């Protein structure tokens, strides 16, 4: 039977782990901004530098992915349900894959993170304060790389490859039947929200219009320069809660 570790012991453990824990890097930006390409390039580069790297993608937890997939397909989700199911996915990944990897000293690359939810759900009309509350306690990334592009460019890039699906196009809120026309309107709001968030949460911006290799060089520079956002200051509650629940050796 796991013992419940004392608060003091947990505090000590978190402080001791700070030096050896892994770095959490979030990739954010509108659809078509090249996040996934850059994430893969960075992963390869980090691995060539002998780092252990774990990637995590949005809405990918084994717990939630099947539930979300079927409900998205039949288009039954309300704005609140859509938001809350993504919060479930996020929380589950934080507890079962992100924090364990960071604790073990691995670097975690998150292809979309909390800010995706904040930008999309705020664009759907939900209150930012409630959204932050639903996602709390927050595990702050050490670095947020924001791939910046205009709504027009995002629309153009998405249109050149595929038709956006119902929720991606924001058809649940715009009510526009044509997915691309809806996407054009919705992404405008999403980019506005992203731009506000980038100021508040100090994103590191990369111009998504630049050549791929230039972006990669900039991403490398950002990662090399990046320090850690100390857990005891920024993410204490999230890490404490996870440690209390998990049966980590020493806790």
């Amino acid at each position, binding site marked *: 039977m796991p013992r419940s570790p004392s608060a003091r012991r947990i505090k000590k453990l978190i402080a001791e782990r700070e030096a050896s824990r892994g770095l959490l890097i979030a990739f954010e930006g509108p659809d078509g901004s090249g996040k996934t390409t850059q994430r893969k390039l960075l992963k390869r580069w980090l691995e060539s530098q002998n780092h252990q790297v774990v990637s995590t993608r949005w809405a990918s937890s084994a*717990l939630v992915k099947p539930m979300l997939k079927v409900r998205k397909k039949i288009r039954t989700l*309300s704005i*609140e349900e859509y938001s*809350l199911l993504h919060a479930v996915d996020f*929380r589950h990944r934080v507890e079962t894959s992100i924090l364990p990897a960071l604790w073990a000293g691995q670097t975690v690359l998150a292809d979309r993170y909390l800010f995706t939810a904040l930008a999309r759900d705020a664009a759907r009309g939900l209150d930012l304060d409630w959204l932050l509350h639903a996602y*709390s306690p927050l595990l702050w990334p050490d670095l947020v790389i924001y791939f910046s592009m205009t709504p027009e460019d995002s629309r153009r890039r998405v249109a050149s490859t595929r038709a956006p699906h119902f929720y991606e196009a924001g058809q649940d809120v715009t009510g526009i039947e044509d997915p691309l026309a809806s996407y054009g309107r919705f992404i405008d709001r999403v980019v506005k929200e992203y731009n506000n968030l980038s100021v508040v949460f100090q994103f590191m911006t990369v111009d998504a219009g630049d050549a791929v290799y230039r972006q990669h060089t900039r991403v490398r520079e950002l990662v090399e320069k990046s320090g850690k956002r100390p857990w005891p200051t920024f993410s204490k509650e999230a890490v404490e809660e996870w440690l209390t629940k*998990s049966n980590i050796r020493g806790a």
Partner: protein
Amino acid sequence: MADQVKYPGRLISVDGTRGKDVTLAANDIVARLKHDGIECAVSRWDASGLFTDMAAGIGGDRNVSIRTLSLVYAADLAFRLRWEIRPVLEAGGVVIAAPYIDTAAAFGAICGLDEEWLRRLMRFAPAAGYRGLVDERKIDRPWKRRTDRGYAEYGALLLEAAAPKRVSKPARRRMMTMLDRARGRKVYHLTNKGIGALAKALIGSRKDASRPSASRPRNGHK
């Protein structure tokens, strides 16, 4: 975000620590109101099927936290509000939410979450006009670990391995004590007498609502 709409309908919440008792109490209220000539709808836990789908998906791996479970509860509640509760309230009918916010808040709190976090999470749900608390049978027994009975039983099954003390026999008593707090609104203990009192209060309020306002000039008055 908070639902402060004044609906013409009436919302009754039924909360308790045991799913079966909550279901039975809701049925008793339906029968009593029907006897008094009032039809009502019932919204039950897991109407969205999220918990059932999750149980099927996780299989033996029960690595789910109380915070994750609470978020699923909130998502299920959002579904119930959209399809079962708000339509009845908007149409001026009576709807029983069995269980409602208090069950999730009390269960989350005994499992270590901040109760205020839970209540703020579910602030999109309208406040119930009438609060019913189940007259619990077998309160001295621990929860049955099952996925098909109710939220607390489901939670007890999933959290048993990680936090056995949180879902023990005394925890159920603590949950009952939490549910019993008034929180500024009258609590109807759902015994036969309590259900009668609730029905009487509901019928009285509907009569009041249909009566013209004293401040409004009636026909013939200038």
